[in-house]
């Protein structure tokens, strides 16, 4: 009876996920193995094309750079936020939540204004006299990375503030009472305890960057095509649906693999979960 009631209540949501997410995504992946030219022909085509290989490589590169920078910047900032006095702390948290709740398009667009030929950065550099001609910063790998870091640092800060606040005060005090200097406490106690949370945040940033569309579209353009923009181009410009599905399948595989592997690593490093 109880078992039945539980199933009944969970059924509508479960059905939606299975029928409208699992089945369609599985179907998309399945089409890539149904080509007449051979089971793996779409993948052979993908990895055979220097251009598409480059896109995959670039996407990995940008995502890893974004993740690495976001982790370092986010961790140091979160550490300062957690140690700020009450009022300042809430202002800092609000200042991180605000960009997070503002859409990807708006936030990427902001960098379009900043990095453009007539943008504030070029204006400023010309005014100071460092450069004579405006630099073209848009549609470079750097522009995409900066905007992505901008996108994900608030997420990292908030995740890590949560993690750092969960480290009990008395554990930190115990470390001090045993003679550990603040630097030693940071290195030997706070950092190791934050690592599992750091991994969770890093996975969110990596998968988010790896599958992003709006930011590379606005700031990278054709020149800095990434997996997301490549997929759109394959599907809606070239009408190569099998090609687009292949890109989709690679994205799913990379995302799921990263999540599973890192979840295992995080669990192993998490001393609380035994």
């Amino acid at each position, binding site marked *: 009876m*109880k078992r039945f*009631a*539980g199933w*009944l209540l*969970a059924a*509508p*949501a*479960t059905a*939606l*996920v299975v029928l*409208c*997410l*699992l089945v*369609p*995504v599985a*179907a*998309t992946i399945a*089409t890539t193995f149904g080509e007449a030219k051979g089971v793996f022909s779409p993948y052979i085509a993908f990895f055979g094309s220097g251009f598409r290989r480059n896109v995959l490589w670039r996407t990995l590169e940008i995502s890893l750079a974004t993740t690495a920078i976001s982790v370092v*910047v986010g961790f*140091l*900032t979160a550490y*300062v936020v957690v*140690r700020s006095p009450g009022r300042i702390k809430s202002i*800092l*948290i*609000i*200042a*991180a*939540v*605000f*960009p997070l*709740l*503002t*859409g*990807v*398009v*708006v936030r990427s*667009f*902001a*960098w*379009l*204004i*900043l990095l*453009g030929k007539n*943008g*504030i950065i070029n204006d400023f550099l010309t005014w100071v006299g460092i450069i004579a001609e405006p630099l073209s910063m848009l549609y470079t790998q750097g522009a995409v990375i900066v905007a992505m870091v901008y996108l994900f*640092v*608030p997420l990292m800060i908030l995740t890590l503030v949560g993690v750092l606040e969960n480290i009990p005060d008395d554990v930190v005090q115990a470390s001090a009472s045993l003679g550990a200097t603040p630097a030693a406490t940071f290195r030997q106690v706070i950092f190791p305890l934050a690592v599992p949370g750091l991994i969770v945040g890093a996975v969110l940033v990596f998968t988010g960057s*790896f*599958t992003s*569309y*709006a930011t590379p579209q*606005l700031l990278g353009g054709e020149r800095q095509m990434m997996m*997301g923009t490549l997929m*759109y181009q394959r*599907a*809606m410009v070239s009408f190569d*649906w099998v090609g687009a599905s292949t890109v*989709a399948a690679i994205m799913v595989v990379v*995302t799921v693999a990263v999540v599973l592997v890192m979840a295992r690593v995080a669990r192993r490093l998490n001393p609380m979960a035994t």
Partner: protein
Amino acid sequence: MKPRTSPFLIAFAALVYIFLVGPLVIVLGAALSDTTYLTFPPHGLSLRWFEKIFEVGAFRTTFVTSFQLAFLATALALLIGIPAAYALNRYRIALPSWLSTVFVLPILVPEIVLGFSLLKSVTVGAGAPIFPTLLIGHTLIVLPYAVRVVSASLASFDFSVEEAAISLGSPPVKTFLTIVLPNIRSGVIAAFILAFITSINDVSTSLFLTGPGISTLPIAILAYVEQYFDPTVASVSVLLMLLTVAVMAIVERTLGLTFLTK
């Protein structure tokens, strides 16, 4: 009474915050500019670009579509998500452990892949109209918020309270509505807000599901930016930021902002 934070770290964090907030301030400045191209600082102030928003038909209609979509998707996700969250907490032992993983899938699968797959299977494959497909997509991406945030509330709810009500003669459905729901109110509000804001800002899922006649605001903005480079988009962005401010004010009032770091 913690030992002082190093001044270098504080300076670094200050720079990070300038980096976080600065670009949004610049968008605001650009929106108030009176020139026809995007520039900062503005040469003169004007509200003409806000007026222009209403002249661009695409913004007007997609604004309405996005709100309808966000509202419907959120309502639908809560309608099926709350019972699921309840089942996962109340009947945890009776249900298999993989069931809760099902509701993580929409986060695990890249949104852009979901959008593309829905286009292939539902719009093209089953011949469904655009709006219902969009609604399915948005309901799916906000469902994890409904299930997880409400679950977190239910996890701290003492189910013996519900049993007490039933023992006093209250029928189960009425008990849920009068006893359980009021106690998880803050979780439901939080889920609603997060879901709504996620839907209204979504690009990746909607990308493949918009077509002639029906589009969402973020997609319309993307399309506009690719053709024109005037401050109208900055004005629309400011309107969206005002929406964010409103949402944060509601969150602050009802839950306190600290819940966002949990």
